[in-house]
């Protein structure tokens, strides 16, 4: 991958709303809601066990002090787990009617969407933070190249953020959490699969390039290789921005139904 000059990322309006004081309590309550239910603990437990098991199963065979394999399977794990994080976020509000109170508080719809996204991202970051035991143990076994590890974690946050934005949007379309989970999983799988190697390789070259650009995984593997290309970062930020925008539109759609 050739390295482009790092461009300055334009400030998207959503980031400016971070400084808004009244999104902070919503963010706090959303994050708290994860830990108020057993889902958070089940999620973190499954995430750590599955991730560690899949990784260490082959780690000693490969005889390399590297986390490449871990980041290789991470998109697959995310595929199942991020819809589990996002499924209840809007669906539950709609189901129980709390949406009505939330959206009549003096906050803009976009701020609520942002607060919910940031809370889910924080939750994912906490889960990822707990996997730091892996690089620590790997580093103790041999000299490890730190670049790909740092890249891998940055990529994981970006990839996870993209899945979360997509999942949140889907959750805002339905009252049913199960529907939100299954559709979220399907949607994440779709954006994942169109860029996967075994799909793009089977296509004529030019089409493969397009598919791998729109697919979500190729960008992740670039970053996880330790190459932080601004194009990949912009891809994820655009992806996240687009689905958050759709999410705001979906929330506003209460007006036409």
């Amino acid at each position, binding site marked *: 991958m050739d390295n482009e000059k790092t461009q300055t990322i334009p400030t998207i309006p959503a980031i400016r709303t971070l400084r808004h004081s*009244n999104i902070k*309590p*919503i963010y706090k309550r959303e994050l708290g809601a994860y830990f*108020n239910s057993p889902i958070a603990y089940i999620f973190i437990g499954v995430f750590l066990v599955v991730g560690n098991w899949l990784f260490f199963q082959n780690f000693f065979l490969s005889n390399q002090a590297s986390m490449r394999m871990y980041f290789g399977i991470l998109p697959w794990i995310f595929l199942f787990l991020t819809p589990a994080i996002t499924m209840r976020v809007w669906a539950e509000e709609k189901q129980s009617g709390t949406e009505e*109170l939330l959206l*009549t508080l*003096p906050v803009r719809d976009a701020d609520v969407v942002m607060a919910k996204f940031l809370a889910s991202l924080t939750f994912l970051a906490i889960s990822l933070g707990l996997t730091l035991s892996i690089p620590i143990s790997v580093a103790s076994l041999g000299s490890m190249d730190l670049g790909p590890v740092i890249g891998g974690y940055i990529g994981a946050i970006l990839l996870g953020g993209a899945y979360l934005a997509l999942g949140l949007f889907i959750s805002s379309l339905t009252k049913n959490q199960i529907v939100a989970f299954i559709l979220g999983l399907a949607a994440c799988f779709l954006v994942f699969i169109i860029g996967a190697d075994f799909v793009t390789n089977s296509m004529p070259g030019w089409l493969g390039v397009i598919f791998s650009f729109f697919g979500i995984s190729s960008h992740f593997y670039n970053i996880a290789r330790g190459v932080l290309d601004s194009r990949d970062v912009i891809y994820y930020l655009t992806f996240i921005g687009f689905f958050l925008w759709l999410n705001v539109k979906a929330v506003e759609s209460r*007006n036409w139904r």
Partner: protein
Amino acid sequence: MIRVLGLTKKFNEITAVNEASFEVRDGEVLGFLGPNAAGKTTTMRVITGFLAPTKGTVKVGELDVREDSLKIRKKIGYLPESVPLYDDMKVYEYLKFIAEVRGVSASKIKERIKEMIDVCGLSKVIRQQIGELSKGYRQRVGLGQAMIHDPEILVLDEPTSGLDPNQIVEIRSLIKRLGEKKTVILSTHILSEVQATCSRVVIINEGKIVASGTTEELTKQAEGKERVYVEVKGAGDSFESVVANLSGVNKVSAKGGSASGGNIVNNIASWEIETDSDIRETLFNLAVENGWKILEMRREQASLEDVFRNLTT
């Protein structure tokens, strides 16, 4: 002052509210009355900024919901019909959360929560999870969150639905007390509630405002007709024909026997007589002449219920 100006709200093809206009003056309790699905909730949702109007607008003071929704929301406390609260939160946590989003300053939050505990009677449940509360307590927490920021305006959508009679009386007296200082819009389809709490009434039916005024003004509209209810023993069916011939009597209708569903049991029958003037004296003399025994006789005044039924059916 809240002014609803030519408000129309359509959902696809369905018109939920149609050209509704009315006013709510400062410091009054307005009863928003209508049968189910008349457009009460939709109107309230527009006032509170949950829905945007299709046509027309709502003005709160000089502010317009189309432009200053956020500023208006700050002035309003809202209790939706189903009392949707976050079941996973504790009462205290929840009130604190709402206070923070509502922009109550950090130094005042504790004081405000304390006041809500007193006003709404929440001291017993303050550490409990909302999901475990009874319907009555949920309602009180709902009222607490609506008032936590000391709003000028309270919008309450059927605040007593699903409560037991004691709780209803309690909540009503609370609303009445609140109404002394705040502007309250209260929707309901229970007429006695309006008579007990509201200073003025707006009646909505099929999305249209069909009447508005004080309860006295509205009942006056239905006056002119007077009705006498009478229960007589020993008259049999002849009662109807005799009374119908009296001057000033418009209509005599059977109201059913006193104990069973039939008209005449033990020769006791009850009748409702619509008249132009007070005929009770004539009726009494008539009974004496014919040897009937009047067991009960009362003049029925037009009530809000009559007005409501006339306007909405």
